[in-house]
């Protein structure tokens, strides 16, 4: 009898162990999805793109500036597109970085705490505005305004692209750098002030250097968003595949890699050289983002190392730092000169020189208290400008969109190419896409996070998984679109369908969900786990009953952010799931659907004279996505306020 019980306990134990093994196997499987995806993406880009690159020849492909794939004698050089991508990004960074950091300083250090409480979540909310909405605003308002005020033949220019991308990147840059600045320990601030430094000296001398890694990360996030952006650039840059002449002519139209993919992929004959060249182009785009992300990682690591202290020589010696500072200053000056020359003419340079001379003189004479006042005034105006730009966009869309919102508009199908009727199928299509994507991404993402955080120690495997996840996270959305087309639509044979769109979106939001879930799991203290394990609960049981409930708010926040992103995306759906005008709802997942962002895109670019409908669609999309983000932000605040562990 006694023996029997022992035996049964032991068999129990075996099955329990097997069960644990099986469960951990499942989580390993989910954790590998991201890695497998990135390998598949690379594989398909290589498979489809490499032959074309080799056929055209690497030098002719990369360094030839003539891109005329559809002419009699086609030429497949992407040099001007690469330059276009770089130039638009530089412009965006030049706009977004000073404004963004200025505002972050203002919000973190200068503004009264009440202002900060109110503005911080608002700015986070703005980070969720879909890119197609920015593009729409750029197309309808900004390019128009530029054309009139600068007296151009067309406002669709490099400048317009950079402004729109800059504004798009601002919320992220402001929010992340503000976090970095305000999380600098209070001690540093007190120590500096106690030495007799002014507040401004404290900000520039201690706070910003201490927050440097966070601020750099913010800039890189913004940079990544700018390089990978498709829809907004496509709508405002004019898309002429030329190198601006002279190279600093910001009023020239320009065309980026992403825009080319967005425009041409839908119309190209599958299997042609042009088709393969587009995949080659996507490969180059992916490599560029890869290089940016890699160097960012290296720089961040070095900055952190330098602050914590290490035996290695400092990243840059003092003299080098000074040299770099002066070079940067020169470059900025030159940029300003060229900019003002280009926009205002020779007068611009004169005015600029006068202003600079004044500044320089001022810096010499003024006391540091007056300097502080001026600096505060500057960061205040930067913040005002940022808020103004964002409020202007929202106001424009809300005030023009409201008249379009009628019962009919929300509940009926489009007629006459969207010029009348409603957007009901687009709303439903977007819901279907998002629900499907989340339903697949959530279990996989949470599973991967559980595997990384609960089932394994840090080692080579987790490093590979994390690297795969980072790579996937940095992949431009249009590349997901191409991959979805080549793999899901053609290779797997799903066709242009709801399902293909859902899977493509899944892959795109997976990294966000994995990362936020992992953070949520990490913030659950070990004592909770140990308490449960010490009671004899299995690991799985502990996770299910103790860890996951504690981490639920964090996971939910990540999920909602994922939903918001999926709802606003256009580029990944262009060739995988959407059609423009479809009166009826899909009856199966193998049918194509309408989607709000795509509907807006086509209305804005291809359908003249549907102004109310355009604005109405933009408004619905804006409300939908920012609404989702608002829920996420509120939930996070709530979770932060309720008792901490």
């Amino acid at each position, binding site marked *: 009898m006694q023996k029997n019980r022992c035996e049964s306990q032991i068999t129990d134990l075996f099955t329990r162990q097997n069960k644990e093994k099986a469960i951990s196997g499942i989580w390993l499987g989910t954790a590998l999805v991201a890695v497998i995806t990135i390998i598949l993406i690379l594989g398909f880009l290589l498979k489809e793109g490499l032959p074309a690159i080799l056929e055209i020849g690497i030098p002719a492909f990369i360094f030839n500036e003539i891109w005329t794939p559809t002419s009699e004698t086609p030429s497949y050089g992407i040099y001007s597109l690469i330059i276009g991508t770089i130039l638009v990004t530089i412009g965006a960074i030049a706009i977004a970085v000073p404004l963004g950091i200025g505002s972050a300083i203002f919000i973190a250090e200068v503004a009264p*705490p009440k202002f900060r409480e109110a503005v911080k979540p608002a700015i986070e909310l703005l980070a969720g505005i879909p890119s197609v909405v920015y593009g729409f605003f750029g197309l309808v308002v900004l390019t128009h305004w530029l054309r009139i005020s600068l007296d151009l033949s067309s406002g669709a220019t490099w400048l317009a692209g950079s402004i729109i991308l800059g504004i798009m990147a601002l919320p992220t840059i402001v929010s992340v750098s503000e976090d970095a600045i305000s999380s600098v*320990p209070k*001690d*540093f*601030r*007190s*120590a*500096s*002030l*106690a*030495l*007799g*430094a*002014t507040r401004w*000296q404290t900000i520039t*001398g*201690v706070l910003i*250097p*201490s927050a440097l890694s966070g601020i750099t990360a913010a800039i890189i996030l913004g940079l990544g968003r700018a390089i990978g952006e498709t829809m907004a650039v496509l709508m405002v840059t004019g898309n002429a595949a030329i190198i601006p002449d002279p190279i600093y002519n910001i009023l020239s139209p320009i065309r980026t890699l992403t825009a080319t993919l967005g425009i041409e992929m839908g119309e190209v004959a599958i299997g042609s050289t042009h088709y393969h060249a587009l995949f080659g182009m996507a490969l180059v785009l992916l490599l560029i983002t890869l290089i940016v992300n890699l160097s960012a990682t290296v720089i961040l690591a070095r900055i952190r190392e*330098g*602050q*914590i*202290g*290490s035996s290695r020589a*400092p990243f840059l*010696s*003092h003299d080098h730092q000074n040299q770099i500072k002066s070079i940067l200053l020169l470059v900025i000056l030159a940029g300003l000169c060229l900019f003002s020359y280009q926009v205002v003419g020779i007068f611009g340079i004169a005015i600029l020189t006068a202003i600079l001379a004044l500044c320089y003189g001022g810096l010499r004479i003024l006391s*540091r*208290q007056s300097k502080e006042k001026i600096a505060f005034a500057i960061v205040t105006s930067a913040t005002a400008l940022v808020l103004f730009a964002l409020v202007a966009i929202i106001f424009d869309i809300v005030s023009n969109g409201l008249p379009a919102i009628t019962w009919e508009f929300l509940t009926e199908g489009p007629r006459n190419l969207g010029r009348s009727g409603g957007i009901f199928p687009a709303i439903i299509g977007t819901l279907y896409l998002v629900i499907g994507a989340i339903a697949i991404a959530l279990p996989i993402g949470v599973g991967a996070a559980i595997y990384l955080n609960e089932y394994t120690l840090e080692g080579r495997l987790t490093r590979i998984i994390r690297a795969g996840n980072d790579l996937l996270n940095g992949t431009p959305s249009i590349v997901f679109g191409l991959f979805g087309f080549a793999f899901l639509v053609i290779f797997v044979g799903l066709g242009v369908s709801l399902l293909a769109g859902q899977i493509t979106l899944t892959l795109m939001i997976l990294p966000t969900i994995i990362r936020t879930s992992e953070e949520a799991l990490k913030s659950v203290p070990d004592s909770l786990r140990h308490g449960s394990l010490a009671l004899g609960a299995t690991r799985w049981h502990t996770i299910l009953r103790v860890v996951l409930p504690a981490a639920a708010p964090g996971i939910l926040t990540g999920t909602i952010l994922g939903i918001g992103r999926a709802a606003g995306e256009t580029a990944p759906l262009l060739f995988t799931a959407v059609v423009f005008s479809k009166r009826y709802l899909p009856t199966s997942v193998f049918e194509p659907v309408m989607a709000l962002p795509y509907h807006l895109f086509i209305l804005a670019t291809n359908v003249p004279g549907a102004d109310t409908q355009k604005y109405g669609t933009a408004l619905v999309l804006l409300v939908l996505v920012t609404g989702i983000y608002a829920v996420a932000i509120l939930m996070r605040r709530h979770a932060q306020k309720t008792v901490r562990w």
Partner: protein
Amino acid sequence: MKQQNNALETQTLNLYYGSTQALIDVDIQIPKNKVTALIGPSGCGKSTLLRCFNRMNDLIPDCSLSGSILYHGEEITGRSTDVVELRKRIGMVFQQPNPFPKSIYENVIYGPKVHGMKDRKELDAIAEKSLKGAAIWEEVKDRLHDAARGLSGGQQQRLCIARTLSVDPDIILMDEPCSALDPIATAKIENLITELKEEYTVVIVTHNMQQAARVSDYTGFMYMGRLIEFDTTSVIFERPKEELTENYITGRFG
């Protein structure tokens, strides 16, 4: 005549955090070129008083005060006081060592640079002088450009003292400078404090009775926002006039 010997002096100083009063009618005279210790149970207002002297309380929202604080006979509570200049003259060392996340060298020259010094040779000289003054020069002279955060806690605290010396103050305020340190590091800092009084006036807050007895010339005992007794350290520790003081230093209260 008497005033000249006081580096700092308060008259009926009352201080409020919002509506709670943290200092009540404090009258204290801090003698020049001496070490003055402030002792008292937790929450009695020692740090608050210390922060009045270099106006660090300005940074605390809704903190208000009445009464006057004189620095070498000059009123410093007014709006017209140049706080930046005042803080340069009255340095402060904090409880937790708080070097900036910069190199050792950059930490020491931060103050002079902030006050407008640019010349590298001068800065080098100041760095060396301050680090020597804080008795840490020998330990760091070969790795001036290493990150300050890589130093031990005791070294970090001495670096912070060097950083305070670098702007050539005449008063140094120390708020429990040794509470985060081990006995050896503490001994080094105590030695340093006795040396510092040659050139500086030192005000030190401490919870450690022996430390107060060892390093200070004068001691003030505070209790619930009031300065109960102020006298030479030997009087306070050997024959205090107030019963409260006696109870406190003999450890007879909680």
